[in-house]
């Protein structure tokens, strides 16, 4: 049944083939996408027409490689900018929330905690539309009452950032809370007995202890933001992020330049994933 118990050959064989099949299923689409990025064909499909790097470097006129594809490059840049702001904001908010719910006591704490968990069970589409309508109403209000035209409240960069922050912060908070629970608070008390203020104790001791969790969740927050589609879809203005630009190309059909972009994104996120894992390893050792 398990490692320490006798297992029949059939049982072991069955499990092994299941696991093999599972991994095949898991990796097949990713491998196919990557391999076809190097196929010298106008369509992301077989037959194999030979190896080429054109879908990365060619500058036209027939094939436009990724590094010359202005539209996609611009979208990647927008996504990076969004992800950067989202990571900073949601890491700050999530960490504040972790301290608030783990170390403070106040009325309605449970209600607030429940509210903070809500984004985990609210579909992203709904977060997107409700934030869109709220900011729209607010914008109309400012315009009608004060005659102000508040750019911030129109679909665009900051609205996308806010929409993503609304649920990514919850994720950060949950990760940081889990780590903060294991923290020995007598360390903080000791520092304060030795004359540190609470802020100093938090800064020098608690935050240092939380660092692996904060860095890890910031990395995931960055990726969550970079890949987000559902919430962003409704809040995006004239500058679209890469998932949205890619979606339109995938839907309408495109050249293997999508495979080239995917290849680069897969490579980058795998590196982030492995680095993140390495940090997590070091933390538990």
């Amino acid at each position, binding site marked *: *049944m*398990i*490692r320490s*118990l006798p297992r029949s050959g059939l049982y072991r064989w069955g*499990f092994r083939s*299941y*696991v093999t099949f*599972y*991994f095949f299923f*898991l990796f*097949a*689409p*990713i491998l*196919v*996408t990557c391999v*076809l990025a190097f196929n010298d064909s106008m*369509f992301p*499909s*077989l*037959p194999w027409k030979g190896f080429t790097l054109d879908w990365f470097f060619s500058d036209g006129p027939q094939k436009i490689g990724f590094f010359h594809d202005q539209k996609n490059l611009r979208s990647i840049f927008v996504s990076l900018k969004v992800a950067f702001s989202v990571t900073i904001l949601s890491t700050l*908010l999530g960490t*504040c*929330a972790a*301290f*608030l719910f783990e170390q*403070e006591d*106040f009325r309605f704490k449970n209600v607030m*905690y*429940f*509210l*903070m*968990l809500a984004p985990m*069970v*609210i*579909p992203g*589409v*709904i977060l997107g*539309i*409700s*934030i*869109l*309508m709220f900011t729209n109403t607010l914008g109309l209000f400012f315009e009608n009452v004060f005659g102000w035209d508040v750019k911030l409240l129109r679909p665009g960069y900051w609205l996308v950032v806010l929409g993503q*922050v*609304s649920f990514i912060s919850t994720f950060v908070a*949950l990760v940081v809370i*889990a780590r903060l629970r294991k923290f020995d608070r007598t360390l903080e008390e000791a520092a304060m007995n030795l004359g540190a203020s*609470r802020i100093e104790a*938090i800064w020098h001791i608690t935050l240092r202890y939380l660092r692996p969790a904060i860095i890890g969740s910031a990395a995931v927050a960055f990726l969550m933001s*970079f*890949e987000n*589609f*559902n919430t962003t*879809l409704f809040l995006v203005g004239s500058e679209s992020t890469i*998932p949205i630009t890619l979606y339109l190309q*995938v839907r309408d059909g495109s050249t293997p330049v999508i495979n080239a972009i995917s290849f680069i994104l897969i490579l980058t*996120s*795998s590196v*982030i*994933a492995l680095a993140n*894992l390495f940090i997590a390893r070091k933390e538990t050792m």
Partner: protein
Amino acid sequence: MNPKGSGIRWIFLLFFTPVALWLLLLLILPHVELLRMSFLKGESGAGLGVTWDNYLGFFHEPIYWTTFVRTALYSVVVTLIVLTVALPIAFYTTKIAGVKVQGFLLVLLLLPFWVSELIRVYGWMIILRESGVLSSFMLSMGLWQEPVELLYNDIVMIMGLVYTTLLFMVVPVISVMESLDDSLIEAAYDLGANKITIWRKIIIPYAMPGIMSGSIVVFMIVLGSYLTPKLMGGKNSLWFTEQIYNQFITYFNWNQGSAFGFLLLLLSSGIIWMALKLTRQKLSDVLK
């Protein structure tokens, strides 16, 4: 609790203010606005005022509520499939695989999920479509006489949804199974229990918190997903998020769209609440 008076309150405000602003401005008020908009007449309608029309419209038009029911049922089905696929994998990685391979297996399990949903769905599209990899492979092997369109049907759509959400089940189940003491299973085995009994009496009850948190997250993601049904299910995918999108972007009928959004919100919280009640778990425990 407050040994140092005013200094402590200041720290409390430092933590409390940003969190309160986040919850108020990005969660509470937008959802209040969603609810309010869903009860207003459309701008084209005569005058403003409170109305049930947006909700009545949902029930009068069969395509709306059939899509709604279909989405709910399929989401439950997908969640159950994900659970049955993920349980053996989690069990294998934590209890059967050699200790040395374990870490490697875990990395391998997690790695594909760092790649965005869109790219993974795109991978399936280029494999399965009529001019795709599978079709041309089968043709060149002489197994098929002509290309076959495998995309754009419900089965492929369900497979796609299972594929994109597996991780959210595998991870929580693995993390509970890791702490399951092997000696419990050994004891049951020594006392003559067969595999089914061991699964039913020991493993599943023990893994229940992980199973529940996985199921809730998977269900929520499937219910709210847009990309996978749209790209793999094609024109006939009939997913409810698509109806919301159409109301907002195509018809520009925000009031109708809000009513749909609110109904989806009710559905998701209703089903999650029921699942929690049935298994006697708490949301705050499940989402750890």
